């Protein structure tokens, strides 16, 4: 019996478990998936919690609902990977030997990396919305808040779902407008990047939208620490920003187990071939989703597209053929912009987000880099698609590689 071990039963690991079990002979291949937590979170839904659009029960289901029969699920922390010996050691000492390993342990927020973040104002006037606890605490805070300076700040790149903090300020604008106190809420978006987004055409579209909604942008602000007493953000070059309530994207890092295993870079992400998704150091280790150091968005859509490529390459590796499927860094992100509208971007390693229609050229129904109602419905419908189609590894009517069909070139 040959063995595949998958570490992490989040979006990426769960998709892979389903795809592999559907294709590999049960008499020949044993598949095991390991995760310390029993709850699967629909992470795109966290964004809606602070504004009372979703609650906790809207974003959680048991992980076991999505692991197919014939895959062994182990709930345990992972001590380390011993790559040279082709084995994984779990907490408590259980050993899992493998022929192939898929690392899908994701990324997590590490607020302790920023001095003053997890201090006396944490979850009182300083929040994150990348955890269900942070998002719920913020929902409670906003219910009673009467206005002041709301600052949305990004501490470090890369971080999970690069458009989420933008969506957060758009939704905050809509939420406080509907509450009738928008004139008393000052919204500022603070980023270490030179603009609202990294790519020029999307930055232009998003900057115009931010200006239209009276949201200030402070670019090139790299946070050193948070001053709790004076409620200020302080940058490395000693600039300051005042806040009454701070929502923050903490530093993102890969799992500590990766560090213990000696397999990570300085942020605990695994050096990975950005085209084949094979680990740089070991031929029988593949990396899927946020755990990899590949230069694309850390997002479920990327993991989904990459899963198809990884699957093909793993099949080749099993049969001793060269790896021929090449990932292009394809990402596809809905951007909620508030008041029942949304925008959509579709891009890869080489092509920045462009205007156009998606997925059908000239027809849509979704508009790329356009702010429309139908894009918002796309995001709303996506939760159903996520639970029922995507996690189960079923076919979606979208190719893994980005296509230029339907996109307009912009000079």
């Amino acid at each position, binding site marked *: 019996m040959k063995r595949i071990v998958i570490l992490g039963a989040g979006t990426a690991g769960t998709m892979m478990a389903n795809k592999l079990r559907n294709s590999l002979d049960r008499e020949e291949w044993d598949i095991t998936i390991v995760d310390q937590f029993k709850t699967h979170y629909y992470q795109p839904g966290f964004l809606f919690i602070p504004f009372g659009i979703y609650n906790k029960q809207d974003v959680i289901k048991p992980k076991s609902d999505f692991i197919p029969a014939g895959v062994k699920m182990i709930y345990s922390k992972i001590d380390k990977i011993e790559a040279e010996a082709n084995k994984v050691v779990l907490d408590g000492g259980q050993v899992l030997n493998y022929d192939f390993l898929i690392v899908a342990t994701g990324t997590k927020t590490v607020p302790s990396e920023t001095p003053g973040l997890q201090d006396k104002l944490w979850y009182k006037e300083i929040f994150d919305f990348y955890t269900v606890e942070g998002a719920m605490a913020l929902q409670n805070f906003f219910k009673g808040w009467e206005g002041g300076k709301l600052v949305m700040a990004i501490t*470090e*790149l*890369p971080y999970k779902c*690069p458009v989420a903090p933008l969506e957060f300020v758009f939704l905050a604008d809509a939420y406080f407008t509907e509450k009738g106190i928008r004139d008393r809420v000052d919204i500022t978006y603070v980023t*270490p*990047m*030179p603009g609202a*987004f*990294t*790519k020029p055409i999307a930055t232009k579209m998003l900057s115009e939208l931010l200006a239209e909604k009276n949201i200030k942008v402070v670019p*090139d602000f*790299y946070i*050193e620490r948070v001053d709790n007493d004076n409620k200020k953000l302080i940058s*490395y*070059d000693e600039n300051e920003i005042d806040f009454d309530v701070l929502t923050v994207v903490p*530093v993102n890092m890969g799992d500590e187990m990766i560090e213990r295993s000696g397999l990570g*870079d*300085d*942020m605990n992400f695994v050096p990975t071939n950005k085209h084949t998704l094979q680990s740089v150091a070991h031929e029988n280790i593949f990396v899927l989703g946020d755990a990899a*150091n590949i*230069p*694309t*968005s*850390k997002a479920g859509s990327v993991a989904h597209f990459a899963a198809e490529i990884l699957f093909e390459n793993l099949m080749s590796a099993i049969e001793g053929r060269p790896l021929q499927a090449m990932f292009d860094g394809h*990402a596809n992100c809905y951007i909620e912009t508030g008041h029942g509208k949304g925008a959509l971007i579709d*891009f890869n390693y080489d092509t920045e987000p462009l205007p156009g229609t998606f997925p059908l050229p000239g027809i849509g129904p979704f508009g790329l880099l356009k702010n429309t109602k139908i894009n918002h419905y796309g995001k709303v419908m996506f939760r159903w698609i996520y639970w029922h189609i995507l996690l189960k590894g079923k076919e979606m009517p979208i190719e893994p590689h980005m296509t230029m069909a339907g996109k307009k070139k912009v000079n």
Partner: protein
Amino acid sequence: MAEKNLAGKTVEVTEEGYLVNTGDWSKEIAAEMAKEDGIELTDKHYEVLDYLRKEQAAGATLTIRKVGKSGITDIKGLYQLFPGGPLKLSSKYAGIPKPASCV
């Protein structure tokens, strides 16, 4: 793309002044670029530039945090060496492409 005369050599640069060909780089070119921004390069600056060139050649994604952990200087020190935009300026003087933040 444009051509520019730096330290007695004509080199290709991007609109933002980054070298198009990393191979064109020399210590003198770095010094002249920095001088245009009002920065006098010291040994410490060159240590950072060497580190960046080495890491970039190895295919690493460069971040301020990474340079801050390099042992050459910390993040605060990096801001003092390259005021305003530590990674953008140091990459320019190191003759490597403008750092592309991940999206």
